[in-house]
């Protein structure tokens, strides 16, 4: 895949709270592949050591907005994997 010079060549995946503990990281930089969806990213993260504790229906946000499983992720996007919310 040819990347434009203005986009970084990776997708940053952010992990929080219990998920950051499970994977031992607060973020991962994944190489940007063509036709990558939100569910591709989630499947990738769940396959990592410790990733099995992340639920299949975990909420994902792309660039601060919740995104459906078939949402296309672009190079330079920030993808956040959100554990069950517990504010309030």
């Amino acid at each position, binding site marked *: 895949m040819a990347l434009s010079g203005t986009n970084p060549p990776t997708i940053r995946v952010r992990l929080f709270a219990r998920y950051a503990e499970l994977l031992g990281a607060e973020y991962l930089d994944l190489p940007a592949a063509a036709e990558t969806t939100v569910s591709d990213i989630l499947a990738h993260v769940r396959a990592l050591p410790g990733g099995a504790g992340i639920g299949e229906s975990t*909420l994902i946000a792309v660039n601060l907005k*919740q995104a459906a499983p078939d949402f296309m992720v672009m190079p330079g996007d920030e993808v*956040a994997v959100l554990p069950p*919310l517990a*504010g309030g």
Partner: protein
Amino acid sequence: MGFLTADPIRLETLMSQVTAPERGGVVTFLGLVRNHHGGRSVIGLEYSAYEPMAELVCHQLIAETESMWPVRAALRHRLGRLGIGEVAVAITVAGHHRDEAFTACRHLIEELKRRVPIWKRETYADGTEAWVDPTGPGAVRSEEREGMIPW
């Protein structure tokens, strides 16, 4: 921005953001850190957040609430370590009349819990700690928490 704060929440600040001479009804919700949860004795907790998204969603919640009812609303949520009895979240809504202020305040706290990316780690009297999962086994599972959050 500024809905999340590491400092103690000052209710007077929120009140002054929403009150005005034409608004006669002010409803405030405070969520305080309780000393118990799920049958366990809690001695403290720590809140963390996906901060830029949490700020954005709080902003959207306020705008949405002020468009649904003729009110002004303000909210704050603490981050970091809190002791028992501290204010974790504060929501203040002022309207011309009390009915809309009660309804809008209730709406805001329910939506905040459903939509703002904040997490809570409790510390128990036996020294153990755990991430709170309101959707997990043993928790009261809300139908609304299933599947997609209606952002």
